[in-house]
């Protein structure tokens, strides 16, 4: 989705979500479960501390040397027989994927879970050109059947409960009786998708880590759909953001220990695929051609700011959203774009522009629950403050796309006034005394008080300020 989506109306969408008790309950239950599982995984504080410090620096190291590592990755992939493509925009990436599929005469595509292809809206693009994409991750399959977007980057259909899924399967899958039995629902999906795997002309997947040293694409998953998508069809296209590169294989173990434990509380995912080439002569299976599409879509611009660059450390574990008190209440769809939750409010405005998604950095109390659990130590709240700053007072005209777009004369004047008051002991004394005398006369309908008092009583100004009381009690004497 491009900037033409205009203002995202985060608040309007949040309003709808907040008033949907079923959605609220689905998210609350799911997030509670995920938080509890993660806590068990990182019970050893010392282990967590050293592991995440390592993980953070592995990612920071890769970003510091990103251009060189991308060139090395490309060279090693080419040596291994993997064809490499570069795309500056999602449109370019879509065109590259479509071109590869058309050249191969592919009509149906089986897809493993990939957030980057969601970012590209690849499915819609392929459908428009007569190619049928079938999502094979169970959660992605469910939302594809429902015609929805993922609401969580690890658990795409987390907003749905099993009754809703039972209804959906009964509606959309031929001869499927209504059942809320999860084993039966899972078996129904297996049956429906087996044929799709066997008949697919190509498989498309994402990438968790791309190892420059060996030209290896690491892909983690639990279901086996990632393995199938990258093994059974004759053609495999892997799509990834340019930031996913790692220098060497030795960098994989710490991140692999952080990612599933942070995401779903598993010590490791069931499958960790390491793909380094297409089928070689004499090998009996595997795709005959493998392509890697490297997508920029604004990431190189993020990389250009040494502070905001930390955004790109993200390994997409979703721990930040699982622990976010705002995400838990409004759900993933409120964020409109592909990446919801804390990492979404940080990444989306940088990709789409502050003029387009500038309200997202403000949808946070800066409670730091996200920063506390981020396995690669992204200082999300501090970077949100940085974006808030860029929106009103750009540090340079093009530090962030859409910088300065939220500056209003009224707000600026308000803060100037605030500074005048709080920056001068004399004015502050006069001001607080006036508030003590007259503040409580303010009606609840006054700006700001109106929102506050919608669910709370009016705060009461004390008749005497602490300054006055401290002086009276002799605390002001040196």
């Amino acid at each position, binding site marked *: 989705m491009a900037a033409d989506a205009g203002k995202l109306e985060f608040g309007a969408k949040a309003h709808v979500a907040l008033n949907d008790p079923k959605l609220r309950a689905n998210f609350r*239950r*799911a997030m509670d479960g*995920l938080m509890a599982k993660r806590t068990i995984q990182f019970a050893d504080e010392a282990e967590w501390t050293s*592991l995440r*410090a*390592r993980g953070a*620096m592995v990612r920071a*190291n890769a970003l510091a*040397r*990103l251009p060189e590592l*991308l060139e090395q990755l490309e060279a090693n992939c080419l040596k291994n027989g993997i064809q490499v493509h*570069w*795309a500056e925009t999602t449109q*370019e990436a879509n065109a590259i994927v479509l071109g590869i599929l058309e050249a191969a005469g592919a009509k149906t595509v089986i897809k493993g879970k990939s957030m980057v292809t969601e970012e590209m809206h690849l499915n819609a693009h392929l459908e428009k050109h007569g190619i049928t994409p079938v999502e*094979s991750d*169970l959660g992605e399959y469910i939302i594809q059947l429902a015609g929805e977007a993922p609401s969580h980057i690890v*658990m795409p*259909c987390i907003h749905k409960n*099993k009754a809703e899924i039972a209804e959906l399967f009964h509606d959309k899958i031929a001869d499927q009786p209504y059942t809320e039995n*999860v084993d039966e629902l*899972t078996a129904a*999906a*297996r049956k429906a*998708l*087996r044929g799709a*795997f*066997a008949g697919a002309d190509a498989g498309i997947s994402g990438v968790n880590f791309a190892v420059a040293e060996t030209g*290896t694409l690491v892909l983690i998953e*639990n*279901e*086996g*759909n990632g*393995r*199938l998508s990258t*093994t*059974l069809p004759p053609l495999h296209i892997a799509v990834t953001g340019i930031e996913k590169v790692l220098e*060497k*294989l030795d*960098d994989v*173990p*710490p991140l692999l220990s952080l990612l599933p434990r942070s995401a779903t509380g598993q*010590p*490791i995912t*069931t*499958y*960790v695929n*390491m793909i*380094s*080439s297409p089928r*070689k002569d004499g*090998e*009996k*299976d*595997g795709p005959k051609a493998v392509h890697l599409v*490297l997508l*920029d879509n604004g990431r*190189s*611009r993020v990389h*250009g700011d*040494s502070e905001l660059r930390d955004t790109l450390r993200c390994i997409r574990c979703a721990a930040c959203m699982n622990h976010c008190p705002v995400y838990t209440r409004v759900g993933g769809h409120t964020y409109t774009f592909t990446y919801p939750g804390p990492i979404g409010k940080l990444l989306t405005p940088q990709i789409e522009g502050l003029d387009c998604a500038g309200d997202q950095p403000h949808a946070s109390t800066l409670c730091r629950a996200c920063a506390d659990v981020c396995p690669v130590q992204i200082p999300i709240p501090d970077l949100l403050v940085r974006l808030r700053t860029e929106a009103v007072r750009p540090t340079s005209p093009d530090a962030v796309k859409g910088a300065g777009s939220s500056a209003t004369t009224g707000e600026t004047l308000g803060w100037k006034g605030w500074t005048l008051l709080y920056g001068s002991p004399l004015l502050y004394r006069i001001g607080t005394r006036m508030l003590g005398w007259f503040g409580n006369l303010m009606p609840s309908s006054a700006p700001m008080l109106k929102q506050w008092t919608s669910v709370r009583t009016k705060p009461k100004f004390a008749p005497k300020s602490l300054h006055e009381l401290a002086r009276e009690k002799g605390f002001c004497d040196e």
Partner: protein
Amino acid sequence: MNSPRERILSRLKASPRAAAPLRPDWIPPSYSPAERKAKFKAMLEASHADVHEVTAAGWPERLKSILADKGVGNVVYAPATRAGRQLAEAWAGGGPELLAYDRPLEELKEVLVSQADAGLTTARGGIAQTGSLVLWPTSDEPRLMSLLPPIHIALVEESSLTDSLAETIRVQGWAGGMPTNAVLVSGPSKTADIEQTLAYGVHGPKELIVLLIGSESP
């Protein structure tokens, strides 16, 4: 500056440069030999796999009885591997039907996708920390035999167990060359996409049977 590649790289190269930060020390867990095996088994079992301790000579017979209990009719195997030959010899007098994965996938797709009951592969190693098998498919032992049949049987030697993935990468010299595909397997296929309720066998095997070959001679 004409290609997207050049434009992306030139933007990245124009970014502020700083020395790449050092990686702070991090020590993956280590175990004594007895702990290693116990941890490997416990982690795999926690992931819903069945682990059987077997001997180098006796595993085919043991497997036969395990599969008989499950009513398995056939097993996809790799006839050109040592394990495959041992299995064929041992089961010559009876046992589940052996389906040889000896042709390209394109000639065997129907069998693999919808007829096979089980598949037997070896594992190049095992990782104690996470209860993971290291599968390293080859021309003789292709990728899909561990993935398409509803039951995957993996043979792993106790002597190949390591404490951690980091150790495996180092002792097996992975940086020197990776195969077409390597995969870590830590249990049967599973999902929790529906209300975080675990369900097995969503796309890959429903069952994982690990035959752990003891390092001491019987």
